[in-house]
């Protein structure tokens, strides 16, 4: 059935495209972010209704069923997933989107003619497959199903080059012959390239890779729009490709890295420094009562939250501890590293949930000069973002990343589960510093004990 003329269809797609632009614009500012997201969702809904009313479609009941299945799986997961697992979920959605684009292009191979359309088919399949496989690896790394350290093997660089060249050659065959056999081989090569591209990336850089793959999927969707001669797909895909590229660069520069350094840094050698073996050098560990005394009789305390706090769901406890200390006259601030946790802005979201006032959250540039006037720095479940190796050891994978300079503080307290190194897999010298005290245990348990001890003083 086509209830809508071509003109009306084009007009409604234009409205949907404008909605997507407004969505991205809205999402760039805290005040309008939520509304922006809803505008984007409305645009998407409009586009899907339009396609049902305008295109001549068979199999409509089956299509509706597939949409129902897709929604029934994704919506409940999105609602229930833990804050700590959100980055994985975003990566997963990105991967399936890339996979869908690759499948769409492959199915259109038979209907496509003209060299440029076939080039677009090849591009969509290849980039979609890379995005699918690459996202799968990022999910596995974030879930710690596989090691978070860079995975490289001898000759990997050559295998990768070979796979890339093979993909281009096979892509050329697909354009020349339009054969399904070559197209399937192209899909396999794309998946292999995705794996090879993401395996060498170290754990701490994974969020940036997710953002890059997000831009890739956008480009694949744009190319699928060329294949299907659908201007909405071209506009929406290009929009995501362009904004995703800018966002990836912004995220990388927040960590003091270049995008190519993140993707290919592991091949340049040196960056595999650091060890998984735990050191048995002596550290000073303490109990909750001692930590409570240090905190309660300090004038100025800075709390550095990290992924451990998110895992333990300790945000409400730490907010209460901050309020309690402030009631005793201690000045308390939170120092937020831009990439603390598993995604940029993770800590802001977490602490906002616990009603920590916005003014207490200090950004890195603002708080770094204040550490030397701080009596106690309380590091809760953070490690890599306070590791001085980023400034002092050029061989370290995190070398060059701006860190919170907690080593300037008069005393440092680490709440940690164990001596295990952080996500980047490197040891933190600061743990062995004479002014450092460690309190082992789950972040929430430790905070609850410290809070109890402060109240008992």
């Amino acid at each position, binding site marked *: 059935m086509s209830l809508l003329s071509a003109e009306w269809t084009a007009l409604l797609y234009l409205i*949907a495209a404008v909605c*997507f632009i407004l*969505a*991205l*614009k809205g*999402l*760039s500012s*805290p005040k309008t972010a*939520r509304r922006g*997201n809803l505008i*984007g*969702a409305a645009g*998407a809904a409009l*586009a*899907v209704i339009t*396609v*049902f009313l305008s295109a001549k*479609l*068979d*199999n409509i009941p*089956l*299509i509706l069923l*597939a949409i129902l299945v*897709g*929604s029934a*799986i*994704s*919506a409940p997961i*999105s*609602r229930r*997933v833990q804050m700590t697992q*959100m980055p994985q979920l*975003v990566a997963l*959605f990105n991967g*399936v*989107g890339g*996979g*869908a684009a690759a499948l*769409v292009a492959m*199915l259109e191979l038979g209907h496509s003619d003209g060299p440029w359309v076939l080039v677009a088919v090849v591009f969509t399949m290849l980039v979609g497959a890379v995005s699918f496989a690459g996202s799968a690896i990022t999910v596995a790394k974030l879930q710690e199903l596989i090691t978070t350290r860079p995975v490289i093997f001898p000759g990997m660089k050559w295998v990768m080059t070979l796979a890339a060249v093979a993909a281009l050659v096979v892509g050329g065959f697909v354009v020349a012959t339009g054969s399904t056999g070559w197209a399937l081989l192209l899909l396999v090569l794309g998946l292999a390239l995705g794996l090879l591209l993401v395996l060498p990336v170290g754990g701490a850089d994974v969020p940036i890779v*997710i*953002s890059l793959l*997000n831009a890739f999927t956008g480009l694949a*969707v744009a190319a699928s*729009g060329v294949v299907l001669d659908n201007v909405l797909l*071209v*506009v*929406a*895909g*290009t929009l995501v490709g*362009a*904004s995703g590229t800018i*966002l990836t660069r*912004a995220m990388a520069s927040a960590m003091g890295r270049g995008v190519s350094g993140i993707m290919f840094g592991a091949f340049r050698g040196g960056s595999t420094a650091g060890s998984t073996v735990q050191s048995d050098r002596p550290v000073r560990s303490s109990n909750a009562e001692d930590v409570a005394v240090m905190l309660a009789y300090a004038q100025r305390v800075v709390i550095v939250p990290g992924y451990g706090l998110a895992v333990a769901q300790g945000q409400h406890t730490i907010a209460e501890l901050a309020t309690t200390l402030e009631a005793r006259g201690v000045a308390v601030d939170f120092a937020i590293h*831009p990439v603390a946790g598993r995604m940029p*802005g993770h800590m802001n*979201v977490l602490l*906002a949930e616990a*009603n920590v006032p*916005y003014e207490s959250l200090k950004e890195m540039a603002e708080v770094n000069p204040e550490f030397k006037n701080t009596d106690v720095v309380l590091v809760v479940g953070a490690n890599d973002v306070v590791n001085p190796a980023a400034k002092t050891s050029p061989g370290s994978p995190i070398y060059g990343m701006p860190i919170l300079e907690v080593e300037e503080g008069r005393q440092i307290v680490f709440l940690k589960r164990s001596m295990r190194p952080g996500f980047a897999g490197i040891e933190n010298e600061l743990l062995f510093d004479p002014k450092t005290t460690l309190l082992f245990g789950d972040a929430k348990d430790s905070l609850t004990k410290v809070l109890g001890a402060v109240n008992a003083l």
Partner: protein
Amino acid sequence: MDPITLLTVIVLTVFVGFEVVSKVSSTLHTPLMSGANAIHGIILVGAIIVAGQLDDPWLIAVALLAVALATANLVGGFVVTDRMLGMFRGRKPAATPKDTTK
């Protein structure tokens, strides 16, 4: 669509894409990435068009898989972004009346 019109649309869209996100604070990096991620779920439109034109049952099955995956990307993407942004609400009562963001 003729190639020149297509190229025009793509080039202009690239500039719009660069422009709309050029001044975003690091706090919003993740929601923005997640929102952009949801937008490319619009491949659903392409998947529906393809699925509606096929006769071979196996190919229909592949197309329906694409429809389901694209729906997961689109619906899940917007829901998870909304949930992320929902957590930013709490700070309003605690903040001072004077707006410090701008």
